[in-house]
């Protein structure tokens, strides 16, 4: 492989990985933007989404076979189910805590995250599940740069979902209400907006996006495990922070940037892949210290 090929291939890898990060980061950012809660459980919703999609696919594959239609169906159903789960979590665990000290709500979120991952661990006995769709290895081959149809499908569906989200948030009244709540909750109440309902809607959308990413991951990688939400949760958080937490375009941008960064990071000479995570986390820490508002985030008004 020539250097150009490597660069192009890593570019493709980075963008594919980045679109995953972006989808999960969106949920983080939306929830954070609206109620300033760092939802630790978000990565686990991604994992649950994968498992739910797997269950649905196994159930309907007898009807539809393991076709793309079946995959799309299970993705949509999983999004609905996990979206509802997100709403329930918000209702049961977070809403009562919104006026509590920050430390308490963070610990609550951590507990929810542990319940989800350990719950799935108990159900699956800690086993890896093979999400077998056998979509084959065909793809677009540009000389030494290769993109499989599965990858292509993933990037396309991630893009479609993100475009839908973008349109929803910017063009519909509900989407605008969501942004407005992030700006001023009281003023929203005075506009006749039922704030609790919109917060629930935000959780629904964020969670279902995570679920969509989870199903895609299942299809793409072919395996599911209860712990798979942890790493991606952290990465997505990093992506959200890079882009500016609270900003929706920021999350998309941050996701893609992080994906690219990691792809090219592996290629740095003399530094082995074993140090990769040190760089990701180091970058996150530096960013939080030096520019906590990220690239597209708004500067927060000083305290008091």
């Amino acid at each position, binding site marked *: 492989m020539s250097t150009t090929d490597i660069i192009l291939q890593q570019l493709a890898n980075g963008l594919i990985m980045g679109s995953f990060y972006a989808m999960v980061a969106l949920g983080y950012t939306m929830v954070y933007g609206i109620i300033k809660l760092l939802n630790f459980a978000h990565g686990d919703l991604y994992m649950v989404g994968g498992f739910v999609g797997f269950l649905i696919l196994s159930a309907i594959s007898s009807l539809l076979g393991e076709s793309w239609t079946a995959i799309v169906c299970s993705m949509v159903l999983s999004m609905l189910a996990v979206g509802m789960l997100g709403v329930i979590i918000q209702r049961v665990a977070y809403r009562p805590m919104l006026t509590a000290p920050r430390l308490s709500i963070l610990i609550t979120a951590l507990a929810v995250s542990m319940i989800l991952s*350990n719950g799935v661990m*108990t159900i699956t006995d800690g086993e890896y599940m093979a999400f077998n769709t056998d979509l084959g290895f065909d793809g677009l081959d540009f000389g030494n740069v290769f993109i499989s149809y599965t990858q292509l499908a993933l990037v396309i569906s991630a893009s479609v979902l993100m475009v839908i989200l973008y349109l929803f948030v910017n063009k519909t009244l509900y989407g605008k209400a969501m942004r407005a709540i992030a700006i001023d909750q009281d003023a929203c109440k005075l506009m006749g907006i039922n704030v609790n309902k919109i917060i629930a809607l935000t959780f629904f959308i964020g969670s279902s996006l995570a679920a969509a990413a989870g199903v895609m991951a299942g299809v793409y990688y072919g395996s599911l495990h209860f712990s798979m939400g942890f790493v991606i949760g952290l990465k997505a958080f990093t992506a959200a922070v890079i882009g500016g937490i609270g900003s929706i375009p920021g999350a998309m941008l941050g996701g893609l940037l992080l994906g690219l960064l990691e792809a090219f990071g592996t290629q740095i000479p003399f530094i082995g892949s074993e140090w990769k995570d040190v760089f990701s986390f180091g970058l996150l820490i530096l960013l939080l210290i030096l520019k906590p508002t990220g690239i597209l985030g708004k500067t927060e008004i000083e305290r008091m």
Partner: protein
Amino acid sequence: MNTSSNTSMVANIANWLQHQHNRLVVLLVMAALAMFFPLIANNYMLEVLTNAWFYTILCLGLNIVVGYAGLLDLGYAAFFAVGAYTTGILTSQFGVNFWLTIPAAVFCSMVAGIIIGGPTLRLRSDYLAIVTLGFGEIVRIIARNLEITGGASGLIGIDRPYFFGIELSQGIHFYYVFLILAIIACFVSYRLQNSRLGRAWQYVREDEDAAEAMGINRVGVKLYAYVIGAMFGGVAGAFFAVKMTAISPETFTFSQSVLILLGVVLGGMGKIPGVIIGAFALVLFPEVFRDLGSMRMLVFAIVMLVIMLYRPEGIWPRGKS
């Protein structure tokens, strides 16, 4: 009828406990129990209780950060790791006497506390939680990748220390070692809690701005909490290394940090007896309810959620008002 007599009995006991003198009696009885327990216990029971004392130290250390200063630290295992590795490396690779490595372990963990705390304590609390999480992972990965730390397999063959000519190798030795350390940890925690510094932590936890307006350097005070918390972890880590004789990066994962945090939250953040109970619950619960097996973390997490929702002050009751 039964309940009412029960409550009155409980009330009586609670009343009885209000007296300083009686509290002392209870404390002495408990201390005697802890001291003489090894005489009736077998190795297994000793091992379990040694572990409980060990977690008591760690939980008390984290309690200073989380309970007193109100900072969420999700990477506490890192400090524990720094202590363990410092001792491990110095004894096994440089042949330094164990007792001499303790100051080194304390020093290194303090430095780690300053490195992570210094620049990040200005951050808002949720960012701080993530930064500490990331830091914990970084420490673990570094330990995994360096030659001197033994890489992924970690350090093995760490020598057992001698104490006045006796090799500390039996379960009973370590039981007493960790019991004494736990008692020291309680004592230090107690003294700190009721000091100028301890009050400053509470002021900052309750209202940062007001504390600052009262002339308290909030970053400095938080850093102090961080560094002292790290020290507890460092000491515990040093003794952990010689007790286990082998340490590996897998011991210092995120879930270890969460487990320690759980102990603090369970018993009651900021309350020494609560934290001790939390640490014991952490260790004894899975031993007693072995059948739960892999569900134990799930049960812990549910308990944690329920506590946060319904009893955020933890199991141990709030002091008199």
